[in-house]
């Protein structure tokens, strides 16, 4: 099947059939962009913010286009009044107790609450152009389904990979208390394309959390499938699964693939989008 690779400085991608997949990577936002984004979003921005990076897939005939970007993902971070009460760093209690002993209770000002773990159930931004869409009753949108699912068996086949890319959208080390990363991976094969958008969270001595969004399209079909899952487990339970042979080496805990293989399933939701 004919395909054309795109390699334009900061943008790499592939054009195949009616589809274009693009991954754009550039530097982190500058201070001015950070100030603007922070004011817009109302929360402090992660340490490494690739606000201009994106992954996009576009289907020319239907006008379907889905983008993955950092700022819309951060806009979904919880900012409710209780948002920062849910998870605290492991030593928070100790910190507060010692602090009272040091007579610093007068500092009552707390940075405006927000979910400092940057947990986001972002599943992409649908920027489809419905003008191309002949069927006005059915805008190009994902709807829940129980009938379709991603063909994992097909994805397990070692078919040639025409295009592969990984793009990190944001990353924060949570002041040495762990990691929060939102990243995309894409692979395009002669028969299908597959995207994994992953939010990976590790809060040391507290928990692991993975929110995955998978996008699958088999070329020649009229559907795009999106599957979202949310999983988490305690840090200690996950750590206990490291093979004993590795001794004190904790590096597996930095590997989201390994952690992912250890987390129990929590919920999974499948949606389908009809291209016409």
């Amino acid at each position: 099947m004919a395909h054309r690779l795109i390699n334009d400085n900061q943008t790499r991608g592939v054009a195949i059939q009616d589809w274009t997949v693009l991954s754009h990577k550039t530097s982190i936002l500058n201070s001015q962009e950070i100030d603007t984004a922070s004011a817009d979003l109302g929360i402090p921005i992660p340490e490494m913010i690739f606000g201009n990076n994106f992954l996009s897939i576009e289907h020319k005939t239907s006008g379907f286009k889905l983008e993955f970007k950092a700022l819309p993902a951060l806009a979904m971070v919880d900012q409710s009044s209780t948002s920062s009460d849910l998870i605290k760093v492991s030593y928070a209690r100790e910190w507060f107790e010692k602090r009272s002993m040091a007579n610093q209770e007068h500092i009552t000002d707390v940075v405006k609450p927000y979910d400092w773990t940057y947990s986001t159930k972002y599943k992409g931004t649908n920027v489809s152009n419905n003008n191309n869409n002949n069927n006005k009753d059915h805008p190009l949108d994902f709807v829940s389904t129980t009938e379709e699912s991603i063909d994992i068996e097909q994805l397990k086949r070692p078919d040639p990979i025409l295009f592969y890319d990984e793009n990190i959208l944001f990353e924060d080390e949570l002041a040495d208390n762990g990691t929060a990363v939102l990243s995309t991976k894409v692979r395009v094969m002669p028969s299908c394309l597959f995207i994994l958008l992953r939010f990976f969270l590790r809060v040391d001595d507290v928990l692991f959390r993975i929110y995955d969004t998978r996008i699958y399209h088999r070329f020649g079909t009229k559907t795009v499938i999106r599957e979202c899952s949310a999983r988490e487990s305690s840090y200690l339970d996950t750590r206990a699964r490291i093979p004993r042979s590795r001794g004190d080496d904790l590096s597996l805990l930095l590997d989201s693939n390994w952690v992912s293989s250890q987390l129990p399933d929590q919920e999974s939701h499948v949606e389908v989008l009809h291209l016409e």
Partner: protein
Amino acid sequence: MVLDLDACIESLFRRQLLAESVIKEICEKTKELLMSESNVVHIKAPVTVVGDIHGLYLTRGDYVDRGLYSVETISILTCLKLRYPDRVQLVRGNHESRAVTSTYGFYTECMKKYGTTDVWHYFTDLFDYLTLSVVIDNMIFCVHGGLSPSIHTIDQIKVIDRFKEIPHEGPMADLVWSDPDPGREEFAVSPRGAGYTFGSMVVEKFLHENRMDHILRAHQLCMEGFQVLFDDQLSTVWSAPNYCYRCGNLASILEIGVEGERHFNVFEAAPENERPSPAEAQRTLFSNGVPTGLFNNGNGGAGVGNGGGGVNGSNGAMTFAGGASGSNGGVDPVQYTILYFL
């Protein structure tokens, strides 16, 4: 055998590791030296100030670095400190701790390079001796993170018992971790449940109380390589260009002249340092046993070398370029486990 520091430094610049026994000796000697240093080291300008280096890449080498050089970085800084004790000052940063380096990769790197954890123990024991702050000409206060609500005067820093692992709370923790918040005036508690941010009035009061005019700190990545806040009363210096091989940020080192004038020397990553070759990436990916490309040794390399170090010397003998810890999906057709993600 007599320790030949010049030979050690030279071999480190050639990227050759020092023998474990040599590291042990150097660490022991440096500890003795640091033991007599105050928590606040007073020095005179001219001074060159270097911020976070994170897996420093020394310009003498010309091949690609994946931030795997934390051992070399801290080795060379230790040798330089020992060789020029009054001209090189190393300030402790939040990564100079056992807890942080055991998660973020310095531990793993030591294991990989020396086959034992001894070297990691030598260095992390040494970290307990690093000073907490530097004052330049009684005017500029240098620290890694920022201010603490428990500290109003320089004398209060002098009485901290610093010879220990960085605690989670208290003035020592605040000095290496706290961040400025330009949108505030006072201290505020982080939503994480530990740690402070400090605002403009805090800076103003601290400087006034101690009759100083500027605070210099590191600790925060910024695209421009430096950031000046609070009406020119505080600067952040960041010295790792193109952090993690993908941030695309500039870096700077700050030169302070005899009149206290500040000049940020801004630089970008050397071209050969922009991105590891697929072969190098692959080597890293697999040798680290983390076949994801996402976190391989990434923040790992950052284990050491983020000490906001004041390098005191009239000649700019130290040339640092680049080299953050790296991680990005090295793309190679044979990396089956990476490419065939599910």
